[in-house]
């Protein structure tokens, strides 16, 4: 019983985010904290780590009652957290980030100042323990998100090594990196550390957790040994109903036959950009959901950026609604009825200090131009309708969007896109960092939008998710189009195409035109 919380109540502006939650974390275990968006996971973590003040309830660490007043306070007690969005300095080196604020110093007899050699060597050892190979002098911002994540973990465990809290550490990692992270987690667990792990990927929960605690609407549903709680039971506990099995049969997919003879909304011929992506050939028709699969860094996002004018193509031809276009700015793509939900929600999506309403109408307003302002009544109606349609949960729509949970922010971004009534909606990882039920809701929305005649380009790292809704799948590999598959193919077929070495699959490359 290393860390124990009893009867935690936490309210934001009178609304209870946690309502009498008990939680127990033992030394030498990996404990998964599960729940839908808004279930209270983040709040519980904030209370445990001192990021939010303890309002009611008791927390004890190794039998001693504690009351962390700040995250630094919690760290000194031995509770370290690695957040979903990496909170490190991209302009410092890997080693500097690990030791920021705690740099080993040279003795004054030797000139004082930072002892760079010790710092770099200790950083190297720490990362080697986690099985990470990286030049510790490299600028952190130039490393992959996975490396950044590991650096954050290295920093956390070096500061204090009793309780490690990982808030969605895997949401930006690909499968190899996840495995690497998990072996590090297992090693830390075996050394007696208590690890609290929050994720939305069910498979990952079972891959690494010993115990699962489920929250729902701010209340404790229960604590279970991972072996005794199967997939379906876990989802049921999270969602609170047994029917919410995470499956959609292919009958939910939009039918392809009646869209086949329509003019494509978007058509590209060998569209490419040097250093970004080579020869993209896509056709997306109204009512169709085109799935774009591929590993991290395969060029998925780059395709979206080219289509939406975030990068300008330097070769090929692109036609939108039968007009030849060349976009150099997203505003031009928006004027041609394209809409885009970017992958990086925090940096590229939401405008944090603006209200939810302002965020939702931003693109619509930008398209209307500078001289026509959306009327107050119209703005209210549009935002209310979309919030209802997408089930955006907020105290009210006039609060800053930064106060919403990740899943709700994502819904707002989709609402922003839908407010412009686009003909083509490009979604880059719209379900990243969102819980099972939330994912399901978003997928259902996509299918419904397609059935209303919208064309969708759906980018996702999760093949299973792509197959559930896509009418066709295009696979990207090594920054080129590796091939395309019908929507009713199997996961294995997609994986085969994703993973095939480029030189070994000439046929697939030839089948590139989709």
């Amino acid at each position, binding site marked *: 019983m290393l860390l124990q919380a009893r009867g935690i109540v936490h309210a934001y502006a009178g609304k209870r985010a946690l309502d009498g939650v008990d939680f127990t974390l033992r030394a030498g275990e990996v404990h998964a904290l599960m729940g839908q968006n808004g279930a209270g996971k983040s709040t519980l973590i904030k209370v445990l780590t001192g990021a939010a*003040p303890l309002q009611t309830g008791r927390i004890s660490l190794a039998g001693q009652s504690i009351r962390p*007043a700040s995250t630094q306070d919690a760290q000194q007690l031995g509770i370290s957290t690695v957040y979903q969005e990496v909170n490190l300095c991209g302009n410092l080196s890997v080693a500097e980030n690990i030791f920021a604020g705690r740099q080993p110093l040279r003795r004054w007899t030797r000139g004082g100042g930072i002892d760079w050699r010790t710092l770099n060597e200790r950083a190297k050892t720490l990362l080697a323990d986690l099985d990470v190979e990286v030049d510790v002098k490299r600028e952190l911002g130039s490393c992959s998100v996975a490396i950044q994540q590991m650096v954050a973990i290295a920093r956390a465990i070096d500061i204090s090594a009793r309780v490690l809290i990982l808030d969605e550490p895997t949401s930006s990692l690909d499968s190899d990196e996840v495995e690497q992270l998990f072996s590090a987690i297992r090693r830390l667990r075996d050394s007696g550390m208590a690890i609290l792990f929050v994720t939305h990927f069910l498979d990952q929960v079972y891959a690494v957790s010993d115990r699962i605690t489920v929250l729902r609407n701010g209340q404790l549903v229960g604590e279970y040994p991972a072996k005794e709680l199967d997939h379906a039971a876990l989802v049921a506990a999270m969602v609170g109903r047994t029917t919410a099995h995470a499956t959609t049969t292919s009958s939910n997919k939009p039918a392809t036959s009646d869209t086949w003879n329509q003019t494509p909304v978007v058509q590209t011929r060998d569209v490419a950009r040097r250093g970004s992506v080579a020869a993209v050939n896509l056709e997306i028709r109204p009512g169709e959901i085109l799935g774009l699969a591929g590993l991290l860094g395969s060029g998925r996002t780059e395709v979206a950026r080219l289509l939406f004018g975030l990068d300008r193509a330097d070769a090929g031809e692109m036609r939108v609604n039968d007009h030849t276009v060349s976009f150099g700015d997203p505003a031009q793509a928006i004027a041609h009825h394209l809409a885009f939900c970017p992958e990086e929600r925090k940096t590229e999506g939401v405008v*944090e200090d*603006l209200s939810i309403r302002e965020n939702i109408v*931003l693109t619509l307003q*930008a398209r209307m131009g500078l001289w026509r302002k959306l009327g107050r009544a119209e703005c209210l109606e549009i935002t209310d309708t979309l919030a209802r349609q997408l089930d955006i949960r907020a105290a009210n729509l006039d609060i800053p969007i930064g106060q919403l949970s990740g899943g709700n922010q994502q819904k707002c971004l989709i609402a922003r896109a839908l407010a412009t009534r686009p003909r083509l909606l490009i979604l880059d990882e719209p379900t990243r960092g969102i819980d099972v039920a939330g994912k399901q809701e978003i997928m259902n929305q996509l299918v419904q939008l397609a059935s209303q005649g919208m064309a969708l380009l759906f980018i996702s790292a999760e093949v299973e998710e792509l197959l559930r809704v896509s009418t066709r799948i295009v696979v990207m590999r090594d920054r080129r189009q590796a091939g395309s598959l019908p929507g009713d193919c199997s996961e294995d077929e997609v994986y085969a195409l994703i993973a095939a070495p480029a030189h070994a699959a000439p046929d697939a490359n030839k089948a590139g035109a989709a």
Partner: protein
Amino acid sequence: MFALPLFWPCLTLALLVMLNAVVNPAFLAIAWRDGHLYGNLIDILNRAAPLALVAAGMTLVIAARGLDISVGAVVAIAAATGALCVSSTGSLGLAIASALGAALLCGLWNGLLVVAVGMQPIIATLILMVAGRGIAQLITNGQIITIYYAPYDFIGNGFLLGLPFAAVLAVAVIVLLHALLTATPLGLFIRAIGINPLAARIAGVRARPITLCLYGFCGLMAGLAGLIISSNVKSADANNAGTLLELDAILAVTLGGTALTGGRFSLAGTAIGALIIQTLTSTIYSLGVPPEVNLVFKAALIFVVMLLQSAEFRASMRALAMRPADPEKGIPPA
């Protein structure tokens, strides 16, 4: 009431005015003389006008994550252009148009460096800050141009409806600007650009042209200030017109509650900020502070004013005041 955004700037201004009134009981007196209002307060309104105009332009630039430290130099350029034009052609309209045109070009140049070349705003505008005085000297041929043309005098010294024309002009510009920002989505776009420029661009906001226009507008405001200042002193002095005005403008913007990091801005706050700075200057004169400690005294007063405006400072003062009474709650509620 304490949470109202303009509460602290207004309180600061009121305290400064009260300080003056205590030292000099005649400070608050306003009389009607020669067909217009007359008094210290009226004088402050008149002298704050150029600063308020420049600070209004600066507010929008800062709100969109920019900065323009060249406004003082642009004031000198506009003053020189206007003075040269009025003394050589004798046409008021031409003088105003050329001064404002030159200032607008200066602002657009800054904007181009930031938007098209991608320079850091402080560096981009530093170029014109340094070069601008030289350009102004070239225009005036190194001389102080004295203006003998009476109609030009009206801009900085005239009265409209009993009030100083410059003050009326500043109020009119700020009111119109406020109307423009609220009646069009421009205010929303500026805030979006200031908070997250990348997200704003992806959302379809044309951040570049808007930013360019904001720098252009900021230059234009500096031009207007240049006209007022040169008219007020009846001359254009390339070396001394508008010196350190950029810093006063940034200070006025900050005093008004606009975040230097962009996004949050208040035009009304900026106007009050400009009044605070001008009142401060008057205070120094009315207290009879010797000229050699003038700047130190001003700095000390600004320090006090900024402390009063700092939410962090007020919170720690409150915590300090509350601690003995309530030892249980060591941590003030967030």
